[in-house]
């Protein structure tokens, strides 16, 4: 390339962080009633650090919200509450089980994963609080339907994503305008990869729920995936009971992604700190969702389908 004067450039993490801060501030500046989705998972933990960098010493200009399937790991739920309290920010929890009680979520059978039903509860919460924007931690590298997602994604009043009818998004000029009832999903870490997330956690020294690190737990092998069994819920009740004839083994594992217990599987690992996880991520041979999301394997287009139905 031509000779140019090289000035200080931002490192890739600094650049990604600056972009994410800019996006969060655009949401705060353009929308009247936004909310930040916080699950206690690693991506949303990064989002909270970005929000601190964007808005401190002020309070966040939005509350935090978790759509709880009722099937979340105890450790993650405890971490979620602790983190929100440390930050002194308001946490709203809305539960898929409440939607089930109202009859707006109907499971096909008792064991059906509640993951996709989060969309219903989310839309109910959006209506209840009148949110005009939801900030989420989705990344474009996660899945091919996400690769074409905008940073500011427009949803109609049914929360539907129409891939053929998205607003053009140029430079860093974001259009968050919506009419009443419609809303915007904003994704500040769209351009981050799993590796970027771990490097950021390492650099910032962010605390994570313990299940992200290697630990021993009872599992069974089901269709090639490691499935955790006898997992205690917040209530103490055990879920993911083994099926008849399955052999329970104690395995050293960690979670690469954390979500509904029924559909997130751990990977075998002895990485018990962030540094080791960064190294393991650099040499892994399986994608994050491929290894760990049982729900994305159902069909080639399952994420695309869920997004059209209002999923993140």
């Amino acid at each position, binding site marked *: 390339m031509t000779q140019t004067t090289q000035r200080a450039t931002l490192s890739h993490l600094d650049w990604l962080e600056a972009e994410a801060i800019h996006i969060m501030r655009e949401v*705060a*500046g353009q929308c009247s009633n936004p909310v930040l989705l916080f699950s206690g998972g690693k991506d949303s933990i990064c989002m909270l650090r970005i929000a601190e960098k964007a808005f401190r010493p*002020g309070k966040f200009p939005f509350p935090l919200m978790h759509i709880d399937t009722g099937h979340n790991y105890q450790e993650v739920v405890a971490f979620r509450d602790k983190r929100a309290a440390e930050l002194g920010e308001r946490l709203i929890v809305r539960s898929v089980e409440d939607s089930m009680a109202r009859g707006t979520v109907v499971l096909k059978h008792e064991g059906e994963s509640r993951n996709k039903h989060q969309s219903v509860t989310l839309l109910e919460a959006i209506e209840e609080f009148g949110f005009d924007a939801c900030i989420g931690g989705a990344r474009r590298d996660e899945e091919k339907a996400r690769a074409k997602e905008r940073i500011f994604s427009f949803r109609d009043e049914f929360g539907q994503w129409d891939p053929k009818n998205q607003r053009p998004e140029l430079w860093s000029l974001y259009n968050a305008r919506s009419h009443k009832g419609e809303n915007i999903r904003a994704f500040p870490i769209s351009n981050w990869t799993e590796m970027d997330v771990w490097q950021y956690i390492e650099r910032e020294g962010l605390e994570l729920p313990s299940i992200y690190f290697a630990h021993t737990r009872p599992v069974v092998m089901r269709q090639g995936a490691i499935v955790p069994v006898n997992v205690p819920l917040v209530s103490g009740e055990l879920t993911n009971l083994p099926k008849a004839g399955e052999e329970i083994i104690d395995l050293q594992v960690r979670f690469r992604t954390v979500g509904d217990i029924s559909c997130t599987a751990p990977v075998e690992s002895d990485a018990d700190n962030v540094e080791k996880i960064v190294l393991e991520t650099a040499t892994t041979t399986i994608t994050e969702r491929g290894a760990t999301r049982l729900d994305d394997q159902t069909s080639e287009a399952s994420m695309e389908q869920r997004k059209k139905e209002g999923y993140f």
Partner: protein
Amino acid sequence: MSAQVEDHGLLRFLTCGSVDDGKSTLIGRLLFDTKTILADTLSAIAKTSEKRGLGAVDLSLLTDGLQAEREQGITIDVAYRYFSTGTRKYIIADAPGHEQYTRNMVTAASTANLAIILIDARKGVLTQTRRHSKLAALVGIPHLIVAINKMDLVDYSQETYERIKGEYLEFAAKVGIEDIRFIPLSALNGDMIVDRGDSLNWYDGPTLLEMLEAAPAAHTEHTEKFRFPVQYVCRPQDSANPDLHDYRGFMGRVEAGSLKVGDAVTVLPNGLTSTVKAIQIGGVDIPEAVTEQSVTILLADEIDTSRGDMIVKSSEVPAAVKQIEATVCWMAEQPMDRARTYLIRHTTRDSKAKLAAIDHRLDVNTLEKVPAEKLAMNDIAQVTFKLAQPLFADPYLENRGTGAFIIIDESNNNTVGAGMIL
């Protein structure tokens, strides 16, 4: 490992070409050879390749799109892909090549600092090549790599390569593109992408990846004037903390230039001046803010400032304009209506705007200027807008951040056009 390795930042680039030029194969090859593709993805595309009766694994399937696109067998939208070499992170904007998708290419180009223009070695410079190059130049991409692909299908002929290079240079002189590099490739076999291969030994230049590794990242090239559009104002007014009682932080991202504590600044539009008391990220002081950094600025004097205002250095105040001439790409199915008022969003500032004149339309295939009465989807034209509010603008080619705007239709809130101020 992140700590020891030198970090060369992040490069955003765009690939232009159609599937026929081997664009998807090229991207697949870059991802595959930089070990970005993991085993489960590879086994999925191996299965699909087998299902479709292909002999070898088809790397182009890595960029296979949405269900809607697969049904129609076309790419309808820009997709973003990621890879990293350990020293640098890359974001690829993968734009569809067809003429009717000019708007997608403009979208993809808007955030890119480099474009790879793909040419099929059997076909040479085509209308499409000229269109892509012209659009890349219009959107201000400073670096072009012309990749002459499918060299395996022309027996790796140096003569063919030199002929196409000559053809392209002749055309490029007319368009005014300056920094152009050429490279012969076979994306299919992986020659000269990450590895050199054995078939192009007459070529002694860098591989494609080496070119990307050496290309300057965004915003490193000009000494730009400091521009800071205010996004949000932080006034904590925390009664428990008297220190914060007078805190007034102006939050935004540095669109250009840099700023140090003590610098003299002017706040637009009110024109009041002050000096920089502190620069912070997350409430923590830093000595200097540089381009593309998101910071909070505190001023020595109390100045009433809100979203849409701009902080600049007092020695470099931009013009406040109420009429702009711009190159516009129309992006909506409904043509631009001269009788209507639109909303222009420039930095963090909005203004109502009316079309005053269409100077000419650009035929992106012949590169000719033609008279025009209306603007339809994918049209590119030079126009004049009258504005209700002044904008603090720089010419786009001097500064993308303060030279770019989008056009919004207030009736449905859609983004209907993109503009670059002349």
